[in-house]
């Protein structure tokens, strides 16, 4: 089909389902993400709360009295359909991309006011408290498809939008506006050794991710807040589902 004069690109709603029964908390997602997205290593003086991390892994322990088991919960940006961060940014550095559903964080537009970080209930955003620096020589190995951010700006997971752009360019070279889904897989999904993360287009009802998202074992973090994340979690364990969809404050 020839593109029309006013071509309207097909809508996607990219999302992921993370199987908590598979996650072992090895951290491969965090490391692969940092390599892919030019996330700087934490400087000596940083703490667990001042480094930059796009996908954090937290441990959630069985809250029941005799519970000894844990699940490890990778938390990337939840890519909300109603993102609390987007409406608070004073200068439109955060944008919900209507064509992909990705919540974009444009670091070069960012003022560094951190209102979006205060607004995000998932703590999925990081501020560059330090000047991003790489040890000797490794700066040459940075990914050319993702720009390095500046000190004093906020950043977060973009579902590896650099890979989406590369896939689009590749498709365009072949004369197509639609990418091959195999060309667009975020780094964490690719790196997970236990294949805990399934990624795809939630809008496409035949996709694996849409099928998993419909299953009763899948749930969202803090669904009552109305943020409608596109990152879902799943577990066969009822305690995992029950305890992760309730805010912590409700337990006191």
């Amino acid at each position, binding site marked *: 089909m020839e593109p029309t004069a006013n071509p309207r690109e097909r809508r996607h709603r990219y999302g992921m389902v993370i199987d908590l029964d598979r996650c072992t908390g090895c951290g491969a997602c965090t490391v692969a993400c940092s390599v892919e997205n030019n996330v700087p290593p934490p400087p000596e003086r940083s703490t667990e709360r001042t480094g930059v991390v796009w996908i954090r892994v937290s441990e959630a322990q069985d809250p029941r009295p005799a519970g000894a088991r844990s699940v490890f919960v990778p938390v990337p940006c939840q890519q909300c359909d109603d993102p609390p961060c987007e409406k608070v940014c004073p200068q439109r550095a955060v944008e919900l991309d209507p064509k992909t559903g990705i919540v974009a964080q444009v670091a070069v537009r960012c003022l*560094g006011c951190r209102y979006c970080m*205060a607004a995000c209930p998932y703590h999925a955003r990081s501020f560059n408290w330090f000047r991003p620096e790489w040890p000797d020589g490794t700066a040459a190995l940075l990914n050319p498809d993702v720009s390095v951010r500046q000190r004093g700006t906020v950043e977060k997971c973009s579902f590896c939008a650099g890979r989406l752009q590369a896939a689009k360019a590749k498709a365009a070279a072949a004369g197509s506006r639609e990418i091959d889904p195999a060309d667009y897989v975020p780094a964490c999904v690719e790196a997970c050794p236990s294949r805990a993360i399934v990624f795809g287009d939630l809008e496409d009802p035949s996709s694996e991710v849409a099928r998993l998202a419909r299953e009763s074992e899948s749930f969202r973090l803090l669904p009552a807040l109305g943020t409608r994340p596109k990152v879902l979690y799943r577990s066969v364990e009822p305690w995992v589902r029950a305890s992760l969809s309730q805010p912590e404050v409700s337990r006191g």
Partner: protein
Amino acid sequence: MDEPLIARGLRRTTLPRFLLWLAPWAALLALGAWAIFLCFAEGLNQTNMDNRFAFGLWIYLDLTVIALGAGAFFTGFLLYVLKRKELRAVVNSAVVLGFLCYSGAILILMVDVGQPLRAWFTFWHPNVHSMLTEVTFCLTCYLLVLAIEYAPVVLRSRKLRDLLSLLVLEHQLHKVMAVFAAVGTFLSFFHQGSLGGLYGVMNGHPFSYRASLGIWPSTFFLFILSAAAAGPSFVLLTTWVVSKLSRKELVKPEVLRFLGKVSGWLLLVYVGAKGVDSLVWLNATSPRAGVSPASFYAYPSFGTWILFLEVVVLGLVPALLLVSERARARTGLLVLASALACCGVALNRFVQTIQTQALPTLPFDAFLSYSPSWQETAAFLFVVAYGVLVYSISFRYLVLFPEERELAKG
């Protein structure tokens, strides 16, 4: 030595004593300037804020001083729009206070953001849905209005008076002051409200999220009310403090009582509204977000006592004292009540800023803590020192309290 600069008819202490008074504040200012320089040069890693505690002492300071600085807009509103002439006695002081609070807030905001050189993006690429955009626009415009309101006070100083053309300008400015007062009131309403909305719109934090009335969350209106209530109290309080420090009668007691009365009635309305709002929030808004209201106060640092302290001890009590004519008649009680009212607003801003972020939301989060670094504290003190210095100099050389001359004569 500097007598020629001091306004006619005012008696001021000797220059060395004045400089002695300024010295410690100047030292504090220098320390703060060093801290601010560190923050610009090294980055915000100089603070103890972090990714979970993204707002800290500075945002709290901003909210508080802007609430206290509301005295400027509300006094101006009462004087120029509602024609309460007796407030002419404090309006200059209120304007200077307002100017100091707002400029201090904007200054600290510029330190607080990671990329101050991009601050103009908010004007170029505004997100009209953001409360912060509203705050930025109104703050900047209102600071301009305050500067214009401050100008006549400065222009009337002894040296500048000599330049004829400037005096004409001052006279012209004075004629349109009512317009500026009205514009200032309008702008103030919006940014005080948007500052409240800042937290009220955060649907990610059930503790601060409030159901909206129209397009604004209820905190929008609560902030306007509380700022309007605290502003006159703060003017009252500073006037009393300056009077004590300078050992001079600056205004007639009726002016202070009037300010107290205004503050008291507004505070009473605010406490009522706050009570209704809290009930709605605890019984409807937060359960809808999946949170039982009691859990907000289940953490040791912030028990229900903080709610009681904010609403009753620092809200209802000063409100009742200030509306009571008998209590107002006693200066001690009047000053105490207005101090309580100011503390109440400060505590409300603290709860909004700090408690909101400290309470965990994610199921695997813990209660978060934060204590400011010395750089943050020093930058905070910079604003305080800046305020004291500029106010002291203004008080010495400008006419902040027009009644002072008559009272001194009388």
